[in-house]
């Protein structure tokens, strides 16, 4: 029997080794790129490892709406134009120059000598293919952000025009964000899109090596990058580590150089740890409480909404739950966005006494009971914030029954328009334009869900939508934000922070758009 038992053990062991080995084969040279300890070894020294929380979704740049996926894509694809994170201006990237010809037409000139990772040169045909694919592809997830484009007209290899259906003031914003990456049309036509998905190529500073799903995405530097070969990094590895504490532990032990989404609990640890520091930046994401203005809900009364807003001490939330990282605000449009209203930013209304008065005026001297939906684990400290808000409302006599929801159920609830008095939601704005942000206050979009309506606002928004005069358009948006603030259409809590743990051996400053531009990451 001894023999049989040993045999059994050996078989199990053999199976283990087999499984382990068979998999290593498929990993190819992943073994080499395995960071292990990032500080050790010459080769590792030129490898940058970044820990992210969720896997990339796809290499189909047009078929995802995922910020963290785009944060990876920006390193291997390029947009025609990009937003300068310092100034907020739109500057050329693949394009050499651009020009607004009329309300409907923009003309672009491409840089010459830009090559894809397979050596093909970038031409207008690639741009036409890329933009029209998403502008016409109803099944693509980014379709609604690009179907404003009517056509891409090729003038010559390096010149083309983008023609829109309507006057489109934010066209440049549109094509400097998710789904704006330019794809290699020839490569795709020759090999098919599925082949592209498996072996994607772009024009970016890094080229694709492999993607082990839920584990890692590996890139290597592209020598012929039109912006010059990256001087610091030969290899770029994104590792997927969903559990917060694990990600932080990896950072602390040197397993990764950068860990995104460090929870507030670990900020001090990362900051104080020898060899790491915490890099913070305000994001373009604002946390809000959507209130229901539908007839019959207490929150349909502006005074109630205002009371609820006044009851919340945004400063306390930011201080105690976010460790001071985050900016209390009254408007959703953040600095760096087109249409930013400075007087509504970095401030908040807090006056519980007045709130009680308002409630009494509105006919709720003893408060009322309401339902408050909140996602959990979606935004920084979302559940905690919801609980604290409910606690603050309790101070003015409003009982908010919080119902936490798992994300997909929460989305479902909203889609079915079964949301009750209030829900918590954080919204980003990849366009960096007030149009995108204020769209949430238009009456038709959220009929049955929030039912907020202000006719003056409707007109303003409609006018701004196709106003090609930037100055006037900006004023329109500032006015719109004032109306919204007076109405307390929604309660705006604060602008979230981006919290990234970084190894001391590198310099990195996160950017507001939550993209991870490896070009901005340098060795110390």
């Amino acid at each position, binding site marked *: *029997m*001894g023999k*049989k*038992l040993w045999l059994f*053990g050996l078989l*199990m*062991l053999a*199976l*283990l080794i087999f*499984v*382990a080995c*068979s*998999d290593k084969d498929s990993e190819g040279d*992943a*073994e080499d790129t*395995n960071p*292990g300890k990032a500080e050790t070894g010459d080769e590792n020294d030129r490898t940058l490892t970044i820990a992210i929380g*969720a*896997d990339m*979704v*796809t290499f*189909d740049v047009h*078929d995802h*709406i995922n910020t963290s996926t785009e944060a990876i894509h920006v390193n291997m694809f390029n947009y025609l134009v990009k937003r300068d994170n310092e100034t907020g201006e739109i500057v050329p990237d693949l394009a050499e120059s651009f020009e607004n010809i009329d309300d409907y037409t923009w003309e672009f000139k491409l840089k010459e000598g830009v090559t894809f990772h397979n050596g093909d040169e970038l031409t207008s045909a690639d741009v036409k293919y890329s933009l029209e694919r998403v502008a016409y592809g*109803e*099944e693509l*997830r*980014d*379709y*609604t*952000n690009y179907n404003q484009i009517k056509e891409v007209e090729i003038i010559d290899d390096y010149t083309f025009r983008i023609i829109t259906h309507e006057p489109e003031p934010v066209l440049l914003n549109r094509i400097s964000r998710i789904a704006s990456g330019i794809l290699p049309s020839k490569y795709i036509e020759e090999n098919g899109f599925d082949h592209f*998905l498996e072996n994607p190529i772009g024009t970016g500073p890094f080229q694709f090596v492999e993607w*082990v*799903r*839920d*584990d*890692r995405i590996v890139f290597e530097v592209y020598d012929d990058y039109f912006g010059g070969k990256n001087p610091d990094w030969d290899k770029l590895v994104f*590792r*997927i*580590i*969903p*559990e917060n*504490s*694990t*990600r932080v*532990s*990896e950072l*602390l*032990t040197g*397993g990764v150089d950068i860990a995104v989404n460090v929870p507030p609990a670990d900020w001090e640890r990362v900051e104080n740890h020898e060899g790491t520091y915490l890099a913070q930046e305000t994001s373009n994401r604002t946390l809000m409480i959507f209130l229901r203005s539908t007839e019959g809900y207490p929150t349909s009364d502006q005074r109630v909404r205002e009371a609820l807003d006044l009851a919340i001490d945004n400063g306390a939330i930011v201080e105690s739950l976010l460790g001071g990282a985050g900016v209390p605000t009254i408007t959703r449009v953040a600095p760096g966005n087109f249409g930013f209203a400075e007087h509504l930013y970095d401030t908040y209304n807090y006056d519980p006494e007045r709130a009680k008065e308002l409630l009494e005026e509105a006919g709720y001297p003893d408060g009322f009971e309401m339902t408050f939906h909140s996602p959990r684990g979606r935004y920084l400290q979302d559940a905690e914030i919801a609980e604290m808000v409910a606690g603050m409302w309790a101070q003015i006599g409003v009982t908010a029954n919080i119902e936490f929801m*798992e*994300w*997909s159920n929460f*989305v*479902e609830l*909203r*889609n079915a328009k079964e949301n009750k008095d209030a829900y918590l939601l954080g919204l980003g704005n990849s366009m960096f334009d007030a149009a995108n942000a204020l*769209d949430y206050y238009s009456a038709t*979009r959220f009929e049955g869900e929030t039912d907020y309506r202000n006719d003056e606002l409707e007109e303003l928004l409609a006018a701004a939508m196709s106003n090609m005069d930037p100055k006037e358009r900006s004023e329109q948006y500032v006015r719109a934000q004032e109306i919204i603030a007076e109405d307390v259409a929604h309660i705006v809590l604060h602008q979230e922070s981006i919290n990234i743990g970084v190894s001391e051996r590198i310099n990195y400053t996160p950017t507001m758009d939550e993209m991870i531009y490896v070009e901005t990451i340098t060795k110390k």
Partner: protein
Amino acid sequence: MNYFIKRVLEIIPVLFIISFIVFVLVFVAGDPVALLLPEDAPEEAVETLRTSLGLDDPFYVQYGRYVVNMLQGDFGDSFRYGQDAMSLVLERLPATLELAIASILVAIMIAIPLGIWSSTKKNSSIDLVATGAAVLGKAMPNFWLGIMLILLFSVTLDMLPVSGRGSFSHLILPAITLGTGIAAEMTRLIRSSMLETLSQDYIRTAKSKGLRTGIVVYKHAFRNTLVPVVTIIALQTSTLIGGTLITETVFAWPGIGQLLIQAVNTRDMAIVQACVMVIAFFVIVMNLIADLLYQVLDPRIRYK
């Protein structure tokens, strides 16, 4: 042989029932479309997508289509990845298997000596400590243990890598995390099974022959205990795979567990279906193997 064929045939209705259960769940789960599109997608876009995915058809049509496709090993494309669900699942299977097998080995290495040891010293302080340790192993939630192990062995002691899959050292912590819980159950079962075996007449016979205690315990008793132990290991497959869900998340282990959790969170039902079917199939096959091993290990069954 006859028995084997019978057991194999039994798998068919079981897989069928499982597919039905999963399909009903998915059907009830409703519409993934909302999650597929941006939050501000217009109504028509939602409708178009819904129709193109065949989600407008009545239940029996959808089920029929599902069964026909399933028989061809096709669970549809993942909404999230836009790729064939089954191949995505199979891609992860090796990672999960590696973790599962390593965990079983860890569990065996802990449980067999501990179980035997405590059974031969019944009610002694050793037994008490071993039983206590086993219960403790079961009482600790997996994720908690995993995080603690990382903090201790990786962060504080800097001995082992924190997470990910790769070298052998990457495997150690997750295998211990997952193996401990299973070892706990196994220890208890081996102990009670050993106790029962040790009270059998043939043990007395063996002792009456003047054999050393070691031979009596390890040859005569343990060999008989092996039969239930194999069954336990097989039955634990299910728990084990369940445990990988948690362990894989904690250790960023790129296996089925992570894929599945993501899929559930994003209502990526093709993946969920494929995952459940693959896992169920695996569990069933393990049980089948255990059944066959049973026959090898226990001649009584052969002579029945």
